[in-house]
């Protein structure tokens, strides 16, 4: 187990290095370069730009810039936003909680409902429920999330007026209820597609497990059908799902670009879009590294979780 962890950690570090190199150089290939936004300012002269370049160290060779940036990154200095000069980590920190609230809620909804639909669909295969779940999942997967968002806003905000159309809270009202009220629609809209994905995977994982010999053994022992399903089938079906959850973990923190835009939710997804539009390179690079770390962390956590649950890996 220790060897396995060390192995995975060293692999992760190499992976991070590769991501950072590619990210850094590709970003600098964009037309206009890091100072494109400043160039649009009519008050800026060429001399000003040169001076700015010198100040920010952008006149050095790209390779040196990368080493400098990476070295600071390791020391916890992720640079400063071009927009307001705030430290990148602080900018990310401002938005990550909003995203965590939205994505955390919708993921919890998706996993709970998706697991239930998946198990029920598999144990009642080809029933009316199973067909409806299948069709429902296809619909949720084939219609883009923003459309559900717009329809939701039209019906529940404009027509019925039950739910707010956007934002995370009403300015001046910081109560929990107010947050929850704003959370309902975006979290449900966002969870639709995840319920669909999760339930399909869960259904097929359950079907795989249910046809195993040990399930027949469990029935032959005289266990109740409920215990056969809950203990023997679901236990084994959840193993591959842990890996899937690990893959989804990063999206919980990096946010949903489209949904956050539709509901003007002040999260990471919107931060990324805004920063890109503003050529705010330090923030974009920071977000890139942040999500890369999350992807690797998510997979690492999933691998460790599988190892903990599965004795064949833990002890093997």
């Amino acid at each position, binding site marked *: 187990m*220790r060897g*396995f962890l060390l*192995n995975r950690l060293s692999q992760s570090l190499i992976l991070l290095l590769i991501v950072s190199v590619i990210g850094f150089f590709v970003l600098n290939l964009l037309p206009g370069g890091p100072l494109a936004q400043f160039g649009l300012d009519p008050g800026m002269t060429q001399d000003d730009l040169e001076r700015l370049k010198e100040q920010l160290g952008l006149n050095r060779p790209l390779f040196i810039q990368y080493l400098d940036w990476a070295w600071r990154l390791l020391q916890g200095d992720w640079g400063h936003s071009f927009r307001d000069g705030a430290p990148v980590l602080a900018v990310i920190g401002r938005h990550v909680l909003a995203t965590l609230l939205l994505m955390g809620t919708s993921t919890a909804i998706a996993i709970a409902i998706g697991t239930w639909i998946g198990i029920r669909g598999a144990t009642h295969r080809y029933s009316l429920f199973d067909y409806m779940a299948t069709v429902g999942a296809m619909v949720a997967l084939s219609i883009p999330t923003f459309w559900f968002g717009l329809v939701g806003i039209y019906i529940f905000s404009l027509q019925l007026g039950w739910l707010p159309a956007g934002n995370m809270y009403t300015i001046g009202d910081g109560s929990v209820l107010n947050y929850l009220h704003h959370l309902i629609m975006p979290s449900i809209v966002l969870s639709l597609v995840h319920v669909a994905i999760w339930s399909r995977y869960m259904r097929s994982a359950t079907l795989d497990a249910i046809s195993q010999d040990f399930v*027949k*053994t469990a029935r*032959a*022992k*005289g266990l109740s059908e409920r215990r056969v399903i809950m203990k023997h089938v679901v236990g084994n079906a959840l*193993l591959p799902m842990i890996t899937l959850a690990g893959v989804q973990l990063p999206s919980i923190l990096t946010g949903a670009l489209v949904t956050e835009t539709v509901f003007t939710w002040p999260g990471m997804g919107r931060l990324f879009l805004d920063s890109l539009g503003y050529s705010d390179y330090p923030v974009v690079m920071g977000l890139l590294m942040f999500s890369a770390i999350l992807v690797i962390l998510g997979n690492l956590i999933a691998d460790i979780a599988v190892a903990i649950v599965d004795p064949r890996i833990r002890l093997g």
Partner: protein
Amino acid sequence: MVATIQPVAPHDVALSVRDLTVNLPKGMERTHAVENISFDLKRGQILCVIGESGSGKSVTANAIMGLLPNVIRVSSGAIHLDGMNIIGMPQDKLRSLRGRVVSMIFQDPLSALNPLMTVGAQIDEVMAAHGVGTPKSRRGRAIELLTEVGLPDPALMYHQYPFRLSGGQRQRVMIAMALALEPTILIADEPTTALDVTTQAQILELIREIQRRKGMSVMFITHDFGVVAEIADSVVVMEKGHIVEQGSAQQVLKSPGHPYTRRLIAAVPHLTGEDRVPLETADKAPILKVEGLMKTYRSGSSLFSAQRVVPAVNEVSFDLAPGRTLGVVGESGSGKSSLGRLLIKLLDSDGGGILFEGRDIAKLSEAEFRPLRPRVQMIFQDPFASLNPRSTIGHILTVGPVAHGTPYAQAREEAKALLAHVGLDAGAFDRFPHEFSGGQRQRIGIARALMFKPKLLIADEAVSALDVSIQAQILQLLDQIQRETGVSMIFITHDLRVASQICDEIAVMQKGRIVERGPPSQIFLDPQSAYTRELVAAIPGEQPGSTRPVAANG
């Protein structure tokens, strides 16, 4: 057939099946899985139900357990378990009988245990499900059971996960689980088929010993008359959903009445102990000479964890004359399949030489070996998995020779001739693999290998997946082909009886080494090594030198 339907079975009958008919869903090849079958399992006896695949023996077992899938329904008849008719019994009542009155062990011990639960927890579960005992008393009982089935260190075994156990040990755990509540009836569905021959002998011995000690009634399903001879008190022979013959083991084995039974018994490969008449060939120089061949598997190699090293093939040397067959026998993990793959270079060797027609092919690169590939061909074990389901038989047969430069028209003619030769009609050329039975597919596999006019055929467990009657036909076909074409053969098998049928010489492998090599007469009648003696002694239903299975207790 039994004429009268008794409402309640007499007291000395543990299980009574009367006029049982089980329907199959529409669109299957038969309308009934079993039709009008009746038999009794007497208390304290072992009843063997024997039949080939598709005979309905497993469906019968599942019907008795109340575990038939929803689409398969009992349409008429009665099953009395310990005097109670279970047909039409409510589900929860049925459930309370399972594991308590009747329990079951299955064919494949590797997949029959839940990989995520400890052995102890899985045994505990049977008792807990029927509300027996306290956690503490159940734990004691589980350890007692593990001792009873002969597992080493039961207290430690209790906390072990199944993947740590060998196949034989897992089957012992299954038996312990089935015995937990001292059921009246034990159903064993081919419990030794997936095991090595020495393990099989141990498990059969264990089942018989426990059955005698507890006076349990056992219904034992098998396809192997050797196993029947070892343990059966009485026998039921099934064919295509019908019982064609039943009676005492003595009677059925010694004087089978029904032609199907006679055919089945005749088809059982038995130890001949006689040497084959060698084929006369012009060339006496060995076609294949293997010298000190080595292959070591390394796994788990990485920066931080230690490497596991398994020597699969260790200093193996032998030679093979043209037109002769060398049998390679051994238990799983003996390295026999690795040896086969090394010879055809599907696997690279670590050391030693393979001289094929005088040329060392072990050191050749893939590109250098390619022109030689047609001359060494392989017949695979699983006739279902080794043919591409999307290709026609014609394509499967011709694609290789065409790739090696034969014009298509010529390849097609040869393929059609070969299909006729292996006993299929020429119409097979345009059909797909799924339209053929297992035996026919294996014939196609043989035809495919022969398309290249090989000098050496390597057959890896080529008949292991087939029913005995089909097995006999395929062995005959291979023998005939060898006599006609003079091809040399390496026949890899775990079944010594099969090896004794077709080989001029047999090499016995254990842990990567050849421990003994000699003609069948030596291997079976006068084995030189202790391991060979052990293997031969473990063959079910055989006394070396005899030509017929002998009855149990004989």
